[in-house]
C-alpha cells in the first residue's frame, strides 16, 4: 500500500470477490447438506405440479428438511405470484 492508494477510489479486490462468491455458494450447499438425495428431485416435481395451476418461477419452491428432537420436519415454501 502506498500513499497514493489512499487517494484513489477503492476498487473491489479479487480476494473480496472470491470471499463473497464463496459465502453465497457455501451457504447454499450447507442448506441441502445431510438431507436425503431425493430432495432436489422432489423439489423439481413439486414445482411441476404447482405450475400446472399457477405460473411460478424456478426458485419459487423452497424445500428444507430439519431434524428436531427425534422427528424430521419437511418444510415447504411456495411463493405464489401476486394477483
Amino acid at each position, binding site marked *: *500500500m*502506498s500513499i497514493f492508494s489512499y487517494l484513489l477510489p477503492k476498487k473491489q479486490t479479487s*480476494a473480496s470477490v*472470491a*470471499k463473497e462468491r*464463496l459465502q453465497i455458494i457455501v451457504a447454499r*450447499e450447507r442448506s441441502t447438506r445431510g438431507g436425503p438425495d431425493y430432495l432436489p428431485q422432489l423439489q423439481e416435481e413439486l414445482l411441476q405440479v404447482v405450475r400446472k395451476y399457477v405460473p411460478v418461477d424456478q426458485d419459487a419452491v423452497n424445500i428444507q428438511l430439519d431434524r428436531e428432537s427425534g422427528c424430521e420436519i419437511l418444510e415447504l415454501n411456495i411463493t405464489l405470484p401476486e394477483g
Partner: protein
Amino acid sequence: MTKIVVVTSGKGGVGKTTTSAALATGLALRGFKTTVIDFDVGLRNLDLIMGCERRVVYDLVNVINGDANIKQALIKDKKVDNLFILPASQTRDKDALTQEGVEGVFRALREDMQMDYIICDSPAGIEKGALMAAYFADEAVVVTNPEVSSVRDSDRMIGILASKTRHAEEGKGDIPARLLLTRYSPERVEKGEMLSVEDVQEILAIELLGVVPESQAVLNASNAGSPVILDTDSDAGQAYSDAVARFLGDQLPHRFTTVNKKGLFGRLFGG
C-alpha cells in the same frame, strides 16, 4: 490410547501428503510412536515424500487381504525413531479397501504395534478411499489453499466428516476438525489478490491449526524425499513444527501470516 487422525481436503494437490508426512514426522520426533498410512490406493505417493519408495515390499491392501502381517508391511523410517510408513497398494481394484479390513489394520496397529498416533493420508475426492481414511478417525486436519475451489471442497469435506465417521454414526457427534492453511502468501493477501486467513476461517468456521507459507522448501523436501518439517531452517518447516505443537495442545501465536513490515519510506512509496 491410540489416536487416529485423518488428513483430508476434498480437493487434490493442496498438500495432504506433505502435511501427513510432516505431522507424522513431527509427532515421532516428540517421542510418539506414529504410523502414517497412504490411503490413496492406486496412486501411491507418500512413500516418495517419505523417501522410502525403494523399500516397499508389502502395502495396505496386502495387510487387509492377509498376504502379510502388519509387522512385515510397516516400513521403519531411517531418519526418525518411532516413525513407520504403511504404503498404499498400486492395485486398480476400487473395492480393495473394506471397512472390516481397515478396522483390522487399525486394531493391529493399536494392539500389536502399540502406536500412539495413526495418521491417515486421505486421497482427493469423496470416494471410497477418502471415506475409509476418515471413517475411524478421532480427529481431522483439513488442508486448504486460500483459493475458491479448495475452500468450497473443504467445506464439503467438513460436512462429510460431520456425518460419515463412526463417531457420528454412533451418535457421539462431530470429530474435532482443524484447519491447516497451506501455500499462503501474505504479500498477495496484502495486495487483495488472495483470501486471507481470516476470510477462510470465517467461511469454514473451524479452529485454525496452522498456516504454512508458500515456500520453495516444500518442493526441495519432496525432491529429496525428506519431510519438510526436518528442514528446520525453512519457513514451511517451522510452520509445520508450530502446527504439531498446537496439535498437541500448545498455545502458539501464528507466524508467517503477515508481510515483514517496511520502513516509513517503503510504506509511503512502496507498491
